[in-house]
C-alpha cells in the first residue's frame, strides 16, 4: 500500500515487449481510480508517447515511466491503478494493479471535538 498526499507523484515504471517493424505513435496511459464491474473509472491520469521503437526480428523489452500527480481532483480514500498500452496494431494491452493499493490522504481533516468544563 502506498500513501499519497496532494502534490505527491506516483511514478509508473512500465515495461513491454516489441518485435517486427519500427513503430511510432504507441502510447502508455496510466490512471488512478476505481476498478469496477463496468470497467475502470479514471480520476487522475497521464499518458506519454513511446518513442524509439526500432525494427527487431526478436522480442525486445522497452521501459517507460509515467508520473501521475496527486491533485485535489481526487478525494481521500483507497484507489486502484491501471495502465494501458494503446495506439498499437491490434488491441490495447491492459495492466491492473492490486485493488485499493493506493491511499490518498488528502488535505488535513479534523473531527470529534469534545469539551469538558469545570470551575477553575
Amino acid at each position, binding site marked *: 500500500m502506498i500513501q499519497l498526499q496532494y502534490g*505527491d507523484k506516483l*511514478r509508473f515504471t512500465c515495461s513491454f515487449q516489441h518485435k*517486427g*517493424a519500427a513503430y511510432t505513435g*504507441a502510447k502508455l496511459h496510466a490512471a488512478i481510480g476505481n476498478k469496477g464491474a463496468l470497467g475502470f473509472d479514471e480520476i487522475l491520469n497521464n499518458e506519454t508517447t513511446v518513442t524509439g521503437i526500432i525494427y527487431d*526480428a526478436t522480442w525486445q523489452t522497452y521501459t517507460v515511466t509515467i508520473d501521475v500527480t496527486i491533485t485535489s481532483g481526487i478525494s481521500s480514500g483507497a484507489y486502484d491503478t491501471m*495502465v494501458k498500452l494503446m495506439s498499437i496494431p491490434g488491441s490495447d494491452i491492459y495492466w491492473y494493479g492490486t485493488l485499493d493499493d493506493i491511499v490518498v490522504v488528502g488535505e488535513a481533516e479534523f473531527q470529534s471535538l469534545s469539551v469538558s468544563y469545570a470551575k477553575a
Partner: protein
Amino acid sequence: MIPSPPKKTPPTQERIFTGKGNYTEILAIYTPSSSQPGSYLTVSTDIKNLYAQGIYIAASAVYNGSQLTLLPDYAVVNPGVFQNFYGSFIMPNSSITLMVYSWYWTDQWVFDDQKQIIINISTGEAQFQKLSVSYAKV
C-alpha cells in the same frame, strides 16, 4: 569427370544485363520478392542451352559477398532446352542483391551469362506483448 564450376564471382562484370551469353541464357530466377530476416529461402534458376549441340552447363550464385551453391553441380543440356538449378540460404538482416551466373564446359568452365535479382527485407507488422508495471511514490 568434369569438375564443378568455379564457386566464385567471375572476373568479368561488364556482362551485367546484356541479356544472354554466347552459349547459355539465364531465363529466369525464382525467389520471393521479399522475406523476413532469418527465413529459409529457396532460389532456383532456369538456364537455356543456346548452342546447336548438347553442352555441359553449370550455375553459381552470390549474394552480399556470400557464395550460394546451386544444384546440380552441372548437367548435360540438349540444344534449345533449359535446365533448372536450385539452392537455399537464410535471409540476412538486410535486403540483398542475388547474382546468378551460368557456365559452360569446353576444356574448362567458361563464364557465360549473368543476371541479378533483388530480395527486399520484410520486417512484418509491429507486435507488442507482456505489459508489466510497478509504481512508487516520487
